[in-house]
């Protein structure tokens, strides 16, 4: 039962020891810290960059062009907004050169609210990311998906953005969803791969004999089957939607939760199948609600599946305000919560056409 951050670290270990990853870098990614969320502790190819996100993205592009396999971290996605032009270049180089240069890099960055991170540690990045053509974008909601998606990202010949839902990084995997090859005992796993507190200059991790496991980019997962209402979501909101669905069983509502996992390319087939079955759809994510990726999904559903809909499609997203405030009340009122997801599902279920 690994946490998501341990799963990420293990995927990076597999990446650097077997899949050709040459450089894992970013602010505080190397020793002594190994990442502000411990995601890069104990790895071999990590290094600390200057405090300069433009340099980080530029370096990632350059390393990729030079035939290396970089994994770059932006410490918080909140600090990636000065690099959008460079992210666009990573996404357009293959196209602009008519196939001359592909840009195989992975960028990982923590996203979302849920840790009382205030204005600059609560941003989402899904809407911004999906606006940058040429990138593949993935976002796991479980440790196992994180592991399998990150391995796929590393093997992809294109730029892939790996969005890490901050609030889930320390959540443990469910029984039956173990990382293949890792011990199930979490104490044992922690002893093997978590850096000790205090001086760690002599510490070395003991990596388990991990097996490769790939989750294809572009494939959603039906996290819960149901026939009443479809919830299309990803990342932090998946466990919330699942919890809401369980609570709604008592009210006779049978919810299907589709965990997109890949935001681009996304699994239109899975979406279509679910909407055709339930005829009611709710999109949930934390990003601000004007020009939001969920609005793309709803627009496409409205255009292509209009006559399947037995209720107006609905978006539940972050409030369209300039930031997420620190105080409990502010954070909770700014992004979807289990309770608001639950009522949105219930309302859709009850809607009479």
């Amino acid at each position: 039962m690994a946490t998501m951050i341990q799963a990420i670290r293990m995927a990076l270990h597999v990446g650097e020891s077997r899949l050709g990853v040459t450089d894992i870098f970013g602010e505080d990614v190397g020793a002594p810290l190994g990442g502000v969320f411990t995601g890069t502790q104990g790895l071999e190819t990590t290094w600390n960059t200057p405090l300069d996100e433009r340099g980080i993205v530029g370096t990632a592009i350059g390393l990729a062009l030079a035939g290396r396999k970089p994994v770059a971290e932006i410490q918080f996605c909140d600090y990636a907004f000065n690099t959008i032009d460079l992210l666009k270049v990573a996404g357009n180089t293959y196209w602009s050169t008519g196939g001359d240069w592909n840009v195989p890099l992975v960028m990982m960055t923590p996203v979302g609210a849920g840790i009382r991170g205030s204005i600059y540690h609560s941003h989402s990045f899904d809407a911004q990311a999906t606006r940058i053509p040429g990138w593949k974008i993935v976002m796991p909601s479980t440790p196992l998906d994180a592991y399998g998606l990150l391995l796929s990202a590393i093997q992809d010949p294109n730029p892939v953005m790996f969005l890490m839902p901050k609030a889930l990084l320390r959540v443990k995997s469910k029984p039956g969803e173990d990382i293949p090859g890792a011990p199930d005992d979490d104490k044992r796993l922690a002893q093997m791969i978590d850096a000790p507190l205090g001086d760690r200059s002599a510490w070395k991790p003991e990596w388990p004999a991990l097996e490769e496991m790939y989750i294809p980019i572009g494939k959603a997962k039906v996290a819960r089957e149901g026939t009443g209402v479809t919830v299309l979501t990803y990342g932090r909101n998946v466990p919330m939607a699942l919890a809401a669905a369980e609570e709604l069983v008592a009210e006779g509502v049978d919810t299907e939760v589709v965990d997109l996992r890949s935001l681009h390319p996304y699994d239109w087939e899975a979406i279509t199948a679910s909407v055709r079955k339930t005829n009611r759809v709710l999109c949930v994510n934390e990003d601000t609600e004007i020009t939001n990726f969920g609005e793309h999904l709803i627009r496409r559903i409205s255009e292509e599946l209009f006559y399947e809909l037995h209720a107006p499609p609905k978006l539940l997203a972050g409030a369209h305000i300039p930031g997420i405030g620190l105080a409990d009340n502010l954070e909770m009122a700014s992004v979807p919560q289990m309770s608001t997801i639950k009522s949105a599902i219930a309302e859709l279920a009850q809607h009479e056409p």
Partner: protein
Amino acid sequence: MLRSRLLEERLITMYKQGDGYFWIGGPGEEAFNVPLGLLADKGTGVDHDFLHLHYRSSGTLLALGADPVDSLRQMKNVASDPYSRGRNFAGHYSARKWNVVPVTSPIEIQYSIAIGTARAQRAGTGAKGISIVQGGDAGTAEGDFATSLVWSSRKGAELPLLLIVTNNRYGISTPYAGQHGYDQISERGKAFGMPTAVVDGNDVEASWAALTKALHYVRTEKKPYLLEAMVSRLRGHSSASGANLAKEEVDCLERFQKTLEDRKILTRSAMDQLRDEVTTELAEASKRIRGEAPPTPESIHDYVFADKNYVGGEV
């Protein structure tokens, strides 16, 4: 200095007791930041100094006259927090009445914004104030630091801007060594033809003198000056790194107290008494504000758009 140190200690205690989610601040920078607050020309508008500060600037704010209880309010994120109404982290000050431009979380952007206030005060405008910008050492790797150097030093269009770098030799966990191509960051100013200086920011008298000199130059010449202050990071980066005492670092307050004692300006017991008084005062205040109201959920929609131009003088 003492008050500022005790404020930070109280904020850390609040964090540790669960009365706040995150602490970041300036213990170890008081010997430089307090003089800065005392020497700045405080007021509103271009005839006074604009301050674009770092998130370690409690010392400067208290020296300007801020009420330490307001800092506790921001820590506790209550609605009465005058700096952000419970929205922002501790240490993220904003005070229009004293030209304290909002402290920003994204590192270094204050250097790009400061050239704007400085431009409003450049030679020929008649404005009496100058602009002062401050940030950490690691942050100088961002392009915004270079932006500030380039824009403030253009020949014939120089800006009255004091650029300060408080060098604590760390960016979170990453040491200064290995991240820079020069010994001192101030060297970067030389290519731009601006005067530069390095000062021991743990020495309050040296800091006062260096600031006086730098401010005088910027005020009279209306040109940029780059001052690097070597400071301590006494409690690590922030609460995220534990906020425990870094014993290997020089403590400017201890040093200053020893000087005061040696020179017989204050006795150790007088200083201890003051410490006890302020500590009690702040402890009581932190209890008191526990009773203050949190911001309401609906308040998230307040202050999205202004309906008056306050900075333009409308009231």
